[in-house]
């Protein structure tokens, strides 16, 4: 392990140590703020109870990511190919970001029900924008000289897209996807808070009402782990695909 990996680990360890110390010295009750050691224990011991919920939330997130990829990539390509359409779509895209997802969540539950559909939709709204915009910016960042080369070769748009623009945009696309997968958890959990019968967000609300704060934290821990794992997975995928860097 090199120094760059060590530093954040040390930092996290320091924070957790202080937290543990603070709770123990002041004898804070567990239903207010449990110490990290207790949270970890609960997260592991009660995994059989937590994991089915985590699986639901993960499914929602993955479906949201899939839906976002299926829609953001074509839209980015369309907007890139037809700048007039970009001008037409841009206000809606920005507006979709200006609406607070919290405000939308209750409506989505009313429209799409208590099942996973409303959560998938929430995750989709959140991830769509960073993927679409980063890909579009990636396409646009392509050097003029290379565009000229392809024009000189008589390449039609679609071939230029596949051979030039797409690989050119990949680093930015992955940056957007990384951002997307980490915030996707927010969308899914908010959806579950508003109305659900399962999922980590539902577990958090339920435990909170019963003053099982340690379980709330355990759910947060699993959620964080899921977000980190997704982020890491995208990073691995990026390294695999962008071999030329």
């Amino acid at each position, binding site marked *: 392990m090199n120094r760059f990996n060590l530093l954040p680990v040390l930092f996290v360890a320091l924070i957790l140590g202080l937290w543990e110390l603070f709770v123990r010295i002041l004898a804070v009750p567990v239903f207010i703020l449990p110490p990290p050691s207790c949270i970890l224990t609960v997260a592991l011991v009660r995994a059989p109870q937590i994991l089915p919920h985590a699986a639901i939330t993960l499914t929602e997130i993955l479906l949201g990511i899939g839906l976002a990829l299926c829609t953001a990539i074509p839209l980015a390509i369309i907007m890139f190919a037809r700048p007039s359409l970009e001008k037409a779509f841009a206000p809606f895209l920005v507006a979709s970001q200006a609406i607070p997802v919290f405000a939308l969540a209750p409506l989505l539950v009313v429209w799409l029900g208590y099942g996973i559909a409303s959560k998938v939709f929430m995750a989709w709204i959140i991830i769509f924008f960073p993927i679409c915009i980063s890909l579009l910016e990636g396409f646009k960042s392509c050097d003029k000289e290379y565009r000229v080369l392809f024009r000189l*070769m008589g390449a039609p748009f679609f*071939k230029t897209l596949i*051979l*030039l623009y797409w690989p050119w945009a990949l680093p930015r696309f992955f940056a957007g996807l990384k951002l997307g997968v980490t915030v996707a958890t927010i969308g899914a959990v908010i959806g579950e808070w508003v109305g659900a019968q399962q999922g980590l967000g539902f577990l958090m609300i339920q435990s909170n009402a019963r003053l099982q704060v340690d379980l709330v934290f355990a759910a947060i821990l699993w959620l964080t782990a899921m977000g980190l794992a997704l982020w890491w997975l995208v990073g691995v995928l990026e390294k695999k695909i962008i*071999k*030329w860097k």
Partner: protein
Amino acid sequence: MLKVSCVTKYFKDQKIFSNLDLTVDRGRFHVIVGPSGCGKSTLFDGLTGVTPLDGGSISWNHESLLNLRYHAAYMQQKDMLLPWFSLLNNALLPAKTSGQDMKKAKKQAQSLFSRLGLKGYESHYARQVSGGMRQRCALVRTLMFNRELILLDEPLSALDAITRRSLQSLLLLLQTEFGKTILMITHDIEEALVLADEIYLFSKKPMSLSRHYVLDSPKPRKFNDPILLNIKADVLDKLEGDLMNEQV
């Protein structure tokens, strides 16, 4: 025969060149020399339709054309290899984009690779090979356009002197072995002297023809040929004179 007459180009109000004439007979190797910034690349961009010209006419083999986009292979100043493709796939780009028979194209590219000294490097990436090899690869890519007329914009300017010498003999192959008609820009007078059948010397602001030399000594040539040395002296004289005038 390439015939360019009275071409004119402005950038806004700045006149880059006007009423410029050039001819290159089929199978000949003509070289353009001129001070940097005089408009040589702009001329090539105009000829190939990368930027629009503001006047003049272009014809290739007596066919009058708007530009040479579909008739010439244009190799720009940089090698422009794509980092995500192997050297071979970079060379195959013209075939891929124009929907040629890939099997045939691959065969052609492979034989060009061995002819230009790239055998064994087909699957290397651009960042893994030297500048000279990258330029050879760009040259193969240019040949893969399969066009008789080739425009080269300072193809060797990014290379060190020794690599440049060895690549100069490859450029000569384009003419002698592949039968191409070549118009090349260079800032290296010696390079022009060993390769050219005719040299156009341009001056700047606006770009205009100041000397035209016809060189008929056989190739490959030696630098110490007295005829070449005479021409070199004349070119340097002219360039120096322009420089003095500019400073006055």
